[in-house]
């Protein structure tokens, strides 16, 4: 239903705006409104250049966008993000939640016609966790029995808890019950690869001509810094319902240029939009803008390991002095939600509801409290707090940092200097805790609160704010062992409340994704993971 509503809506807007520069001739979808275009070719802006097409080595969003159309995991995602059967047509989960048995489709085929077997998945997952593969996302498979030991090089890959009972039956054994495990199986780290071609070509198996894939498409061309071209895989089990014949994923590093190519009609979909152009887009082509909540939190980390930010009261003062609505309404301005909690409220297995106590106050009340806490910490107009805000070079981060420095100065009298660094230097500075305040963001690896909660664990690789609270760590360990989803959510909520009280990081807003989609692209639905598959799209006559 949602799909239909989107389409109708954009159609009406189109008709109303027929005189504009951007209206194509004639109604979209022909006379009937659903008529397909003759040439089923789609051009997609895909952000930065993909670094690899090896599903087990992939680490970035551009690679996984292509991967989802090239490969199919045991489980796949519908356009709205719901989990649907992929290569596995059904599965069973044991009582204790630790054994998954998948029944594979009889007609699943590789792009060279070979059947996709349970053995291919065993081969793929073993390869994924094999240290020799040099995967950086192998930890996705960590819930599987022995995976961590294999990744660490302590056990051979053959010890992985994955077994082919027969060609069509795959069994996966887990260390602990993991409520989000099925979701992990949509990640490229769990894909099967075609064993004979990997063996034959080695590292070059991802080249056009060598790559054998099991998704709806196969690789036709790969021009570094230009595009990856996919063509329909005739052997795909559901090939009959695949409409688009060719898909181009263009490298579009420069977002402003990407929007221009979209406006010139060269792209059917963009990867994102330049935030600063939002006002212009809303005015001139609002019907093509698609915005959806995204599983990410934008935050300011506070280095709690050294004075002055080792004081929780001061940290809360800084948090309360920020008017989040100004940031979300005037700077990012694409419908981001001001954040008064750390974990995005839309996340699965959680229910939300945790917020900092001041969330319901007015901004004036928050600022008054901020001033009180600031004075209590011993600062005043004569003795102002001096801070350094670190951000990595980017226009959006720059504007937010300027705004926050200005709010801190106006509300508290804090003298903040801004420091921007190029990404790798920034990471280094952050990692070595040579910071005071730093800008950061976290996009969930999977749709579960744990991927956010674990960041503040004292041992987490992402805990660059140096938060070290044994009680928080204890709650996380408790949650990891809990099989009852509701109880688990309760424990995680307790942990989040503690985190918000201590405020080692200031949550600012929850991300959204924004992209441009031409009205003739049918079937696209924005979802919280920002995932889509080309096979779900169609090009209407235009």
């Amino acid at each position, binding site marked *: 239903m949602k799909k239909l509503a989107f389409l109708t809506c954009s159609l009406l807007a189109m008709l109303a705006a027929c005189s504009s520069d951007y209206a194509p001739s004639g109604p979209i979808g022909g006379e009937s409104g659903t008529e397909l275009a003759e040439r089923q070719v789609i051009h997609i802006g895909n952000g930065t*250049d993909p670094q*690899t097409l*090896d599903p087990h080595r992939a680490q970035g969003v551009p690679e996984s966008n292509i991967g989802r159309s090239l490969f199919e995991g045991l489980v796949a995602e519908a356009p709205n993000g719901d989990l649907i059967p992929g290569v596995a047509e059904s599965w069973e989960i044991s009582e204790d939640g630790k054994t998954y048995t998948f029944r594979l489709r009889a007609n699943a085929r590789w792009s060279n016609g070979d059947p996709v077997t349970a053995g291919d998945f065993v081969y793929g997952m073993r390869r994924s966790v094999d240290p020799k593969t040099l995967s950086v996302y192998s930890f996705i498979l960590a819930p599987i029995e022995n995976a961590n030991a294999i990744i660490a090089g302590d056990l051979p890959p053959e010890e992985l808890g994955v077994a082919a009972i027969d060609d069509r039956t795959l069994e996966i054994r887990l260390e602990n019950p993991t409520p989000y495990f099925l979701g992990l199986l949509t990640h490229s780290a769990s894909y099967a690869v075609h064993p004979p071609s990997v063996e034959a070509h080695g590292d070059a198996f991802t080249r056009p001509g060598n790559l054998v894939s099991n998704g709806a498409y196969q690789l036709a061309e790969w021009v*570094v810094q230009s595009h990856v071209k996919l063509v329909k895989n005739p052997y795909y089990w559901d090939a009959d319902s695949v409409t688009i014949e060719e898909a181009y994923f263009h490298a579009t590093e*420069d977002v402003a240029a990407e929007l221009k*190519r979209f406006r010139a009609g*060269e792209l059917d979909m963009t990867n994102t939009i330049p935030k600063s152009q939002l006002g212009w887009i809303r005015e001139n082509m609002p019907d093509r803008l698609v915005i959806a909540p995204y599983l990410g939190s934008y935050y300011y980390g506070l280095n709690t390991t050294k004075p002055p930010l080792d004081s929780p009261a001061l940290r809360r003062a800084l948090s309360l002095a920020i008017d989040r609505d100004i940031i979300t309404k005037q700077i990012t301005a694409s419908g981001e939600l001001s954040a008064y909690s750390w974990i995005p409220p839309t996340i699965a297995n959680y229910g939300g509801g945790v917020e900092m106590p001041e969330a319901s106050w007015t901004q004036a009340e928050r600022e008054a409290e901020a001033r009180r806490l600031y004075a209590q910490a011993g600062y005043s107009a004569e003795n102002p707090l001096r801070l350094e805000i670190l951000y990595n070079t980017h226009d959006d981060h720059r504007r937010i940092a300027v705004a926050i420095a200005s709010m801190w100065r106006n509300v508290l009298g804090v003298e903040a200097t801004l420091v921007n660094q190029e990404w*790798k230097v920034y990471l280094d500075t952050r*990692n070595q805790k040579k910071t005071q305040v730093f800008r950061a963001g976290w996009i969930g690896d999977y749709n579960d609160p744990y991927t956010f909660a674990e960041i503040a664990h004292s041992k987490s690789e992402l805990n660059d704010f140096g938060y070290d609270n044994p009680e928080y760590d204890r709650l996380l360990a408790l949650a990891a062992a809990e099989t009852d989803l509701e109880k688990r959510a309760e424990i995680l909520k307790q942990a989040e409340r503690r985190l918000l009280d201590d405020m080692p990081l200031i949550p600012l807003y929850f991300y959204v994704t924004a992209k441009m989609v031409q009205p003739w692209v049918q079937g696209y639905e924005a979802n919280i993971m920002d995932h889509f598959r080309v096979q779900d799209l169609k090009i209407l006559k235009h």
Partner: protein
Amino acid sequence: MLRYSLRRLVSAIPTLFVLIAVAFFMMRAAPGGPFDLERSLPPEIEANLRAAYRLDDPLWLQFARYLGGILRGDFGPSFQYRDFTVTELIATGFPVSLRLGASAILLALVIGVTAGSIAALKQNRVTDHVVMTVSMTGISIPNFVMAPILILVFAIHLRWLPAGGWGDGALRNMVLPVIALALPQIAYIARLTRGSMIEVLRSNFIRTAKAQGLSTTAILLKHALKPALLPVVSYLGPATAAVITGSVVIEQIFGVPGIGRFFVQGALNRDYTLVMGVVVFYGMLIIAFNFLVDLAYAWLDPKVKYS
């Protein structure tokens, strides 16, 4: 001349060696590494990666191995493009950059020298000011402003040309990036030509030629152009090497798959091998073009001799 050429060829070897050594160690001294991510890798995975790329060996050993590789024409695997070697990346990207850059330089040379000569002939008159003002737009308006304006006008409003993409080097895809690349070069060449042409036009031998009643065009082409081109040629050596190895801004805005982006993207990603590859490649081009420039001096001004 032959002996001079040979000497220059021999001197290229230590030059390249110093370049490689300084660039190699400078790059390694910079903070951050190719495997630094926002979420630091689990230690064992990072150890595996470092071992696979042999980053744990002593630096001098890595350097020696790198030199050995270069001698065999092997620039090593790219850290960023994990499915390609640096040699492959340069081999596929350079022809694109070369085609674009060479067209831009040729265009700039023709327009720049013509504009500069006209301005010099009409020195301090309205024509001079108009010609120079127009040719200066290329550096007064930076290319990251000029390129989007070109796209807005010619691709979005007039719909004459594509807004981006390479299209296997089709002419229509080349027009806008070539213009955007050529504009600043036109400014340089026109101004240098004008300046030195004015000087040459005032020298004694031109006065003699004028006294003999030769036409302005004849004087310009036969006598004045060659000596006047001297500073232009000095500039052109490194400029050509730079332009044919691509421009980050132009490649990003127009989506051109050249090697210009590797300089910046490679450096930002700490893709050591990729940056080294383009540095060595670019260094060779610089050396080659500056050698050609020095040969050109002798041709433009027969009194310049090398011993």
